[in-house]
């Protein structure tokens, strides 16, 4: 479990975090989503007791990250953004070292099991320096998992991996997330969408929005959006279409098209088509304009002024 309250962090005079507040429960995979420089790594470093916050409070696995930092560190597995590996060590020895630091009684077996989890058993006796990027990432993950932590914090765990490796790691994270609390950061939306139960979008040190990936997509901006192309003036038509029950945000665009939204549960496209034709217009085209999470994200994070934290759907 992670509970964060009004967390701020200043680097010198620059404020990197502006009072973050959020929670993550056991059995939940929470995605921390934001562009570079949003403050993801900073937050994670505070949650893992790497550095103290400037103000605010963070409770991880039941302990305060500042005053009970050793207790937190015992219970957290952390994969930093730059995977921390001793390249001149043998894979097995490295994991054994980490297991020893965690005072695991059955360190050697644990290393074996963990290597199996990340699919690296056959490289146990190789030097870390000889491993590919994807393999190193998996050894980094193994290190974070070695003590079966209550809370797992992963900073961009799939960055630099090739697509098949990404799929493997994502499956592994989802599996782990069933019993533990997982907080992972990413700047890839589809990743958050696939792996996370809940997504927290953060930009410039502020939480912009927080919701399930489905809700974000369905309710935020990306409710089914449709564009209509007709022959003739569309201004009047927009008003007319807007009056149809179930149609939302009907408007005419500068390029002479008309667009509206509807909730997936209430497909109003037939009614709209009929209304267009009955009003004497020629309907040339009607196509869906589903906003991807990418666009939602750009939409949410492009404003200069930090948006107040809000629920995506109201």
């Amino acid at each position, binding site marked *: 479990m992670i509970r964060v309250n009004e967390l701020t962090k200043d*680097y010198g005079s620059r404020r990197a975090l502006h009072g973050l507040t959020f929670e993550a429960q056991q059995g939940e995979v929470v995605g921390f989503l934001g562009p570079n420089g949003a403050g993801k790594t900073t937050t994670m*470093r505070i949650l*893992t*007791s*790497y*550095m*103290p916050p400037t103000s605010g409070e963070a409770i991880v696995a039941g302990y305060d990250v500042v005053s009970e930092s*050793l207790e937190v*560190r*015992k219970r*957290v597995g*952390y994969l*930093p953004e*730059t*995977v*921390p*590996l*001793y*390249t*001149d060590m043998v894979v097995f020895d490295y994991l054994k*070292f*980490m297991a*020893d*630091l*965690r*005072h695991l009684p059955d360190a050697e077996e644990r290393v074996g099991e963990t290597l199996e989890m990340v699919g690296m058993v056959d490289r146990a006796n190789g030097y870390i320096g000889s491993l590919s990027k994807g393999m190193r990432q998996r050894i980094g993950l193994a*290190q974070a998992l070695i003590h079966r932590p209550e809370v797992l914090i992963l900073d961009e765990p799939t960055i630099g991996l090739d697509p098949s490796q990404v799929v493997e790691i994502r499956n592994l994270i989802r599996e782990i997330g069933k019993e533990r609390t997982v907080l992972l950061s990413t700047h890839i939306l589809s990743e958050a969408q696939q792996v996370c139960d809940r997504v927290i979008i953060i930009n410039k040190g502020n939480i912009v929005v927080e919701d399930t990936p489905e809700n974000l997509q369905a309710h935020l901006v990306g409710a089914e959006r449709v564009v209509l192309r007709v022959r003739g003036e569309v201004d009047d038509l927009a008003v007319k279409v807007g009056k149809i029950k179930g149609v939302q945000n009907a408007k005419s665009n500068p390029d002479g098209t008309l667009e509206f939204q509807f909730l997936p549960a209430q497909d109003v496209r037939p009614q709209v088509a009929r209304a267009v034709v009955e009003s004497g217009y020629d309907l040339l085209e009607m196509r869906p304009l589903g906003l991807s999470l990418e666009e939602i994200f750009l939409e949410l994070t492009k404003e200069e002024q930090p948006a107040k934290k809000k629920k995506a759907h109201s």
Partner: protein
Amino acid sequence: MRNIWIIAKREYDHYFISPVAYVVAFSILLVLGIIFALVIYTSAQNVFYGSVPDISPVTGSFAFLLVLTTPALTMRLLADENRMGTMELMLTAPVRDSELVIGKWLGGVLFVLTVIGITLIFPIILNSLVSPGIDQGAMITSYLALILVAASFLAIGVGISALFTNQVAAFFVTMITLVTLWWLMGFPADYIQAGSEFFRYLDLQSHFYSLGQGKIILSDVIYFLSLIAVGLFTGTMAVETRRWR
């Protein structure tokens, strides 16, 4: 305690895959071997005049060689963790900052103790060559002084290594510090009236040779223990401030 040991063991093992450590150990043993041969050669001549050969040329040279080699043994200890990003791993593992620094230091101490252990063959040979044997008291305190010098140098090296991300920078700063302690403290003591006592106390060589006479002198031991404490404290502080940046 356990964490210190785990970290020390990893560092100790690391020396045995490190070319730098092999070069250091080999050069020390080579130079000391030559010096020892000279000791035997001159002793053989002096035995006529009734003088007892002693081992201090070996321990004295060893201490001097440590001035030159310790920086190479300590430069990477914490600087490399800073460079490789593994410091983030250590600082988020359930290990105190002081345990990390002491563990690194202890790893270096164990390595140098291993080399010192090998050189024990010199006094043993010497002892068997002369009939009443060598002055064992002087031999024991010489080695104690040597161990204290090594431990102090390593602590200073670890402390300085913690301040840097670049090994080479750590190497040179450590070297300058050790050279200053070994040679240069005598100069201000000789030329500056005010505080000459203070500089004389800081002069490392005088404590080293004073201890090597055969008696354990508390103030000398305290001097070295203080150096160790200062080195390890500097290291711990440096690691801690890294968290605040």
